[in-house]
C-alpha cells in the first residue's frame, strides 16, 4: 500500500475500497471480544471457517471477527449480513446449520434468535432486540461492521475523514473551539471539559508536548473502554491524532492494560497500518504535520490510572501520583505539557469534527452532552455494554436495556465509579445519567461502570469491599490515604463481623473527612466516597450491624448466630 499524500487521495482510496465491496455479499460478523472468549467465541469462529471451507464458500462469504457487540450476557454472538440476522449464544455445533440454513438458504433459525423472556416474542434482527433497540450507538454501532484489524474496513465507513478535515480545513484553534463548543466532557471520571484541557496544554510554554490515551480502565466492573478500543482502534487513534494537531503535539502515548492480548494486538496493528497509510508518522496526509505514538503497559495496579501516576509510569518510574501543585496539562511527562484523555473521550472527537458541535450539542442534557458508554454488571439480567444519550433515566438502563434483576429479586442500589464512586438507592433510579446530577447525589458517573445490586447485597460489606480493594491498589505513600484505608477497613471488617462498637460511625466519618481533605492525590481524596454514599443512604444498615448485630441483607455470615445469615 502506498502512502496517502492528500485529502483527495484519501477520498479516492475510500471510493476505491467501497466500489470493490458488494453489499449483498453474505458476511458473518462474530464477536471476538474478551467477554465472549470464556464461552468460546474463538471456537465458534474456527467452526465457521471450517464449515465455509467445507462447503466451498470461501469466495462467496466473508467471515469477520469483530470487537464486542455489547450484549455480553448472550455471547457468543454471530450476525449474518445483509439480513442482520442476530444469533445468540452460538456454539460450534450450531455453525453447520447456520451456514446451510441462513447464509445459503436465507432462512432464520428460530431457536437461535432472541426470545423475550416475558412475552416469548422473537426478534431476529439485531436492531429489533430490546437490548439494542433504544440505544444510540454513535461510537459502538460500527463495531459489528468492521474488522478491527482492517484499516480498510474503517476507511470504508468514512474513517479518517475527520482527520483530513481538521488538518486541511481547520486551524488548531478552530479544532479546540469546536471541542469546547460541543462541551465534550472527559469520560474517564472527572467530567472535566476536554476543550479547556486542550487549550491549557496548547497555551503552556514549551515546544515538546504530549497527548495520551488513558486506556488503563482499572475500576472493577468497567469494561467499556476495552470493548470500544479493541473493537475500533482506529476511531480512538483518529481522535488522538486530531487532538495532537490541535494541541501542537508530535508524540503520543497509549497507556493500557497488559492482560488483554486482543487489545494489545489490535492497537499494534492499527498503529502499523496507520503509519503505512501515511496517517501517522511524518507529514501526515501530506499536511506537514508529524505525529508518532508509542504504547505503554500497566501491569496491574489501580493507582497507575491516576493521571500523574500514569505519566510517571510512562517515564519509567514507580506509578506514584506526583505531589506537585501543577497541572499535568502544563507539566506532565518529563515536566512537559501533557494532555491526557480516556479512550471514550478521544473516540468522540472525530464525529464532533465531522458533524459539528451543533449536532453534538443536540444530544444529551444541558451540561452533559453526547452519548455515554455504560458497562452494566452485577445483579442484572443483561450484563453488557450499552451506549445511550446522556440524560437517559437510570431506570431505563436497568430495566429497559438491562432486563431487570435476575431471580425475581428486588433492586437495592446502583453503584457508579468503582472504588472512587458511590452507591445510590433504588428510590433514586429515576435520575438521569448526567455528570452533575450523579455528583450531587453523592456518586460519580465515573468511567461509566454501573454495578447493579439486589436485595441480598449488604451495603456495609460493599463499603468494606471497596476499601479492601484500595488497600492493595493505592500507592501507600501518604498518611491520610494509607493509614486511613487501614483503619477504616479494620473498623468496617469488625462491623461486618458483629464486632461493631458505638462510635464507629463517627470515627469512620472523622477519618474519611481527613483523607478527603488532606490526601496527596485525587484517588486518596476519594477513598471514602463509597463509604460516604452508603452512610448517606443506608445508615440504618450500619446501625443494625452495630447495635443489633444483625445484617438486614442476611449476607454477613459472621452475624448468623445472632439473627441470621443464610447460605448462598
Amino acid at each position: 500500500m502506498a502512502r496517502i499524500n492528500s485529502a483527495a487521495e484519501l477520498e479516492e482510496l475510500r471510493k476505491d475500497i467501497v466500489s470493490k465491496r458488494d453489499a449483498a455479499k453474505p458476511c458473518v460478523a462474530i464477536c471476538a471480544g474478551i467477554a465472549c472468549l470464556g464461552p468460546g467465541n474463538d471456537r465458534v469462529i474456527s467452526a465457521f471457517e471450517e464449515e465455509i471451507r467445507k462447503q466451498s464458500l470461501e469466495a462467496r462469504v466473508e467471515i469477520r471477527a469483530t470487537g464486542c457487540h455489547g450484549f455480553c450476557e448472550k455471547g457468543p454472538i454471530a450476525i449474518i449480513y445483509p439480513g442482520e440476522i442476530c444469533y445468540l449464544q452460538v456454539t460450534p455445533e450450531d455453525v453447520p446449520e447456520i451456514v446451510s440454513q441462513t447464509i445459503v438458504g436465507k432462512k432464520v433459525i428460530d431457536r437461535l434468535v432472541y426470545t423475550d423472556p416475558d412475552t416469548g416474542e422473537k426478534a431476529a434482527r439485531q436492531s429489533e432486540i430490546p437490548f439494542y433497540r433504544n440505544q444510540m450507538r454513535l461510537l459502538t454501532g460500527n463495531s459489528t461492521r468492521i474488522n478491527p484489524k482492517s484499516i480498510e474496513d474503517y476507511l470504508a465507513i468514512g474513517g479518517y475523514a475527520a482527520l483530513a478535515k481538521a488538518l486541511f480545513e481547520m486551524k488548531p484553534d478552530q479544532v479546540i473551539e469546536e471541542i469546547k463548543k460541543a462541551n465534550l466532557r472527559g469520560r474517564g471520571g472527572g467530567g472535566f471539559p476536554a476543550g479547556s484541557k486542550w487549550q491549557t496544554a496548547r497555551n503552556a510554554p514549551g515546544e515538546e508536548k504530549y497527548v495520551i490515551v488513558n486506556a488503563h480502565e482499572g475500576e472493577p466492573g468497567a469494561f467499556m473502554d476495552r470493548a470500544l478500543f479493541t473493537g475500533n482502534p482506529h476511531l480512538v487513534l483518529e481522535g488522538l491524532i486530531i487532538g495532537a494537531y490541535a494541541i501542537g503535539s508530535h508524540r503520543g502515548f497509549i497507556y493500557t492494560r497488559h492482560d488483554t492480548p486482543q487489545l494489545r494486538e489490535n492497537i499494534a496493528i492499527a498503529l502499523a497500518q496507520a503509519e503505512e497509510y501515511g496517517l501517522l508518522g511524518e507529514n501526515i496526509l501530506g499536511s506537514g504535520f508529524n505525529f508518532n505514538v508509542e504504547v505503554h503497559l500497566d501491569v496491574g495496579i489501580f493507582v497507575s490510572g491516576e493521571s500523574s501516576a500514569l505519566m510517571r509510569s510512562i517515564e519509567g518510574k514507580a506509578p506514584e501520583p506526583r505531589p506537585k501543585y501543577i497541572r499535568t496539562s502544563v507539566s506532565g511527562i518529563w515536566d512537559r505539557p501533557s494532555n491526557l484523555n480516556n479512550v471514550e473521550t478521544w473516540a468522540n472527537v472525530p464525529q464532533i469534527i465531522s458533524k459539528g458541535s451543533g449536532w453534538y450539542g443536540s444530544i444529551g442534557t444541558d451540561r452533559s452532552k453526547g452519548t455515554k458508554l455504560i458497562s452494566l454488571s452485577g445483579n442484572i439480567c443483561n450484563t453488557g455494554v450499552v451506549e445511550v444519550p446522556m440524560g437517559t433515566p437510570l431506570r431505563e438502563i436497568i430495566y429497559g436495556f438491562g432486563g431487570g434483576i435476575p431471580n425475581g429479586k428486588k433492586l437495592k442500589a446502583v453503584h457508579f465509579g468503582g472504588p472512587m464512586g458511590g452507591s445510590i438507592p433504588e428510590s433514586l433510579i429515576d435520575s438521569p445519567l448526567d455528570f452533575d446530577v450523579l455528583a450531587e447525589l453523592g456518586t460519580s458517573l465515573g468511567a461509566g461502570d454501573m454495578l447493579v445490586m439486589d436485595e441480598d447485597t449488604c451495603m456495609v460489606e460493599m463499603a468494606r469491599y471497596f476499601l479492601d480493594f484500595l488497600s492493595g491498589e493505592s500507592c501507600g505513600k501518604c498518611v491520610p490515604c494509607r493509614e486511613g484505608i487501614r483503619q477504616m477497613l479494620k473498623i468496617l471488617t469488625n462491623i461486618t463481623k458483629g464486632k461493631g462498637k458505638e462510635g464507629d460511625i463517627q470515627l469512620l466519618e472523622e477519618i474519611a473527612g481527613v483523607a478527603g481533605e488532606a490526601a496527596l492525590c485525587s484517588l486518596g481524596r476519594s477513598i471514602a466516597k463509597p463509604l460516604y454514599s452508603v452512610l448517606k443512604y443506608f445508615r440504618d444498615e450500619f446501625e443494625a450491624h452495630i447495635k443489633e448485630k444483625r445484617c438486614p441483607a442476611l449476607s454477613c455470615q459472621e452475624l448468623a448466630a445472632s439473627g441470621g445469615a443464610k447460605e448462598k
Partner: protein
Amino acid sequence: MSEITLQIDGREVAARKGMTVLEAAKKAGISIPTLCHHEKLEPYGGCRLCTVEVEERGRTKMVAACLYPVEKDLVVKTRTEKVDRIRKMILELLLAHAPDAFELQDLALEYGADRDRFEKESSFCLHCGLCVRYCAEVKKKNAIGFINCGTRREISFIPEIASKECWNCKECFPLCPTEALQAAFVLTKALVFPSPLSELKG
C-alpha cells in the same frame, strides 16, 4: 528572583517566587510541623502534617505547605480548626505505629492527639521515606528502598548493597523519627552476616 508578598496567619510575609509556603513561613519565623521534610531532600508530600489552609481567589483549600508554591497575595492560615483536626488525626494514625516516638509525642501534646485512639500496629515505620530518599538523593547508594504498595508498603534494605555500604555510613539512622530503621537494619544485618554473635550485639 522576584520578591512577592503573601499573607501568613495575618502577617505580610515577603518571599521569592519559586519558594514553597513552608520555606516562606520558616523565613518569617512561623513554624509549621513536618515529619517527612528535610532541607537536603526533594519535597515529598507524604506525611501531610504540614497541611495548611490557603485562600486563592475567594476559594479555600487544604494544601501541603512543603510543596505549595507561594503566590502574590496568597492568604495562608497555618492553624485553623480544620488544620488542627487534620493534624490531630494524622498524628493519631501514626501513633498506632510508633506510640513512643519522641517527635510524635511532642506533636501529640500540641494537637491533643490520643496515642491510643487506634489499635497498635505491628510495623513501627511511619513511611516518611527520609532514609530511602537520603540514601538515594544525598548518598546515591540506594541501599534501602520502598517495596509493595498500599497498606503493605514498607521499607527494605537491599542486602546486596547494604552489606557493602551501610555498616560505615548509618547516616540515615538519626533521621528516623522512630526506632524502626535501626530494627530493619539489624534484621538485614542478621540475614546478610549470619555469623558472629558479637556483631549482632554491637
